[in-house]
């Protein structure tokens, strides 16, 4: 455990954080512990985000630091044969049909992943049938529908309906989010909830599967 690394990541000191990670690896520190440090830092950043003390650019930079440190650590983990983190739940996530916005979706997927979920990211402009197929195959507890436009309201509704028609609606909780989404749209689409940002999505998903 390196408190120094945790602090550097939390303080958004990118270059120093990556350099320290390199140094620690050279010194023979357990590579998995570096990932634990990053996760701890991301936990702090996520809490600060939820409290309105840090913002999306910080989440993006944190993701970027994690990617760089992950790339340093990966070859060492593969050579030592050590496994990855235990997952707490499965989520299928995508931007609904006709909508190509991905930034918010990517941030939510990233935060869900960091918080221990196994996320199947279907990308953007995802037809309802593809969500149905993914739910059958991946058996998630939660489905996340992202959309930015007012034209995403009906595709959201259609996707929830398609899950129902396939007999899958009762097996999943559905959350929606993005630009022009709100509680009105959640009710209209017959989703279970609307989440206003990435940490709201994490909170909803954790609540539904019963972990804190």
């Amino acid at each position, binding site marked *: 455990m390196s408190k120094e690394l945790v602090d550097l990541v939390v303080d958004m000191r990118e270059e120093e954080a990556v350099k320290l990670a390199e140094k620690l690896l050279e010194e023979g520190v357990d590579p998995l512990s570096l990932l634990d440090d990053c996760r701890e830092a991301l936990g702090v950043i996520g809490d600060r985000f939820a409290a309105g003390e840090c913002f999306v650019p910080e989440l993006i930079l944190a993701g970027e630091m994690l990617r760089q440190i992950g790339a340093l650590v990966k070859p060492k983990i593969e050579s030592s044969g050590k496994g990855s983190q235990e997952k707490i739940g499965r989520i299928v996530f995508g931007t609904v049909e006709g909508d190509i916005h991905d930034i918010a979706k990517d941030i939510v997927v990233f935060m869900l992943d960091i918080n221990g979920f196994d996320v199947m990211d279907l990308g953007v402009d995802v037809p309802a049938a593809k969500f149905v197929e993914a739910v059958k195959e991946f058996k998630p507890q939660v489905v996340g529908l992202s959309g930015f436009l*007012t034209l995403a309201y009906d595709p959201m509704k259609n996707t929830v309906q398609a899950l129902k028609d396939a007999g899958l609606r009762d097996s999943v909780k559905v959350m929606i989010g993005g630009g022009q989404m709100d509680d009105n749209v959640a009710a209209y689409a017959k989703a279970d909830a609307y989440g206003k940002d990435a940490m709201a999505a994490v909170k909803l998903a954790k609540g539904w599967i019963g972990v804190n």
Partner: protein
Amino acid sequence: MPKPENFDKLTPDQKREARIDAWLNHEGLEFTDPAAEKGYRERAQLFADAFLMKKPKRVPVAIATGFCPFVYAGYSCKDAMYDVEKLGKAMKKFHVDFMPDTAASAGLYPPGKALEILDYKLYHWPGHGVPENTSYQCAEAEYMKPDEYRTYLNDPSDYFIRTYMPRVFGALEPWKELPPFTDLLELPFIPYGMLHFGLPHIQESLKKLMQVGEISLEWAGKVTEIDNGIITSLGLPKYQGGFSKAPYDVIADTMRGTRAIMLDTFRKRKEILECCERNIPFMTKMPYGAYTWGAPPTVFFPLHKGADSFMSPKDFKELYWPSFKAVMLNLIEDGFIPFLFVEGSYNQRLDIISDPDIPAGSTIWYFDQTDMQEVRKHLQGWACFAGNFPSSLFRAGTVDQVKDHVKKLIDDCAGDGGYILVNGAVLDEAIPENLHAYVNTAKEYGVY
């Protein structure tokens, strides 16, 4: 009312007054009948009073139209951009049937054919990258690379011609081979500066540009006809004049993209600030291109990457606000009224934007999801504000919900003037009864 000969010698307040008068007196427009002309004056007066925070007869009501006129007319979104006859019919029908207090412009739906010839990459549009019944959407990418800030700063126009345009328009890709025009200095250099225009692939790009020019010219003529037809037959004024952007958004939306600019706020902070500063004169000049005397005195700014969800209040104050404010002050100085469309929310910026350097009554703040009680606290008596009707209610709400929400907004915001009712985000789909309820409730309940 022609432009006063001594316009340049007037004070900013006098200039604004002259621009408003020219608009109220519809300089350059011939109405089809006296009733339409009277209606125009009355409606424009509602807005003019609201802009200046005087008490109008009632709260003016507008609809921010995305593609809803086409969905409503039974056309596809693609039709709007590929069939100018349908574009005209749908716009006319929408305004005749709903009669908000202002006319939306057909100019928001550019000709798809021209964009196709250009091979424009920054957007996908109906039938071209997104389904035929979906609105156009931005497809951001790093059209400016992270190490190119300095090149842009050295010569923005040269950067646009030889680097940005070749990347964002496939048809102009060959322009990356052109030498800089600033080399054309002395007689012996001319042929070496010009010989590229003899190359077949460069000539091909110029031919495409001429085709695009012809299509755009014809389209612009028709759009003016459509818009003026609505204005002069129904008596609905436009209320949005020129167009500009916050200097930060120029880099963030168009050149670097959301994700990249966010990383740049940590990695390239100094360069971002310099670019914002560099963009001030361009963004000050931009609205003059579309403005003719008698047009609405407002300059519309769609504000994007400074919203609550995109940056901290500290970054807003340091990176976004100073250059944006400078552009606004330049335009205010010349009698324009910046019309600032805050997409997303500005809940954490209200104390920053209510800046005492900006004269009272010289801006309009149009909000999407910002808390209007707080807006009223911060802005009332200093600037006109507008918006916040949730577009979701048009599609997902009931008639009663729409009526209740209109009443609530009027109760919360109307005060003694200075509020315009408008939906917070452009609208693509709506239940017609909900739109009628929205306009009619505003007209009945919004009387002062």
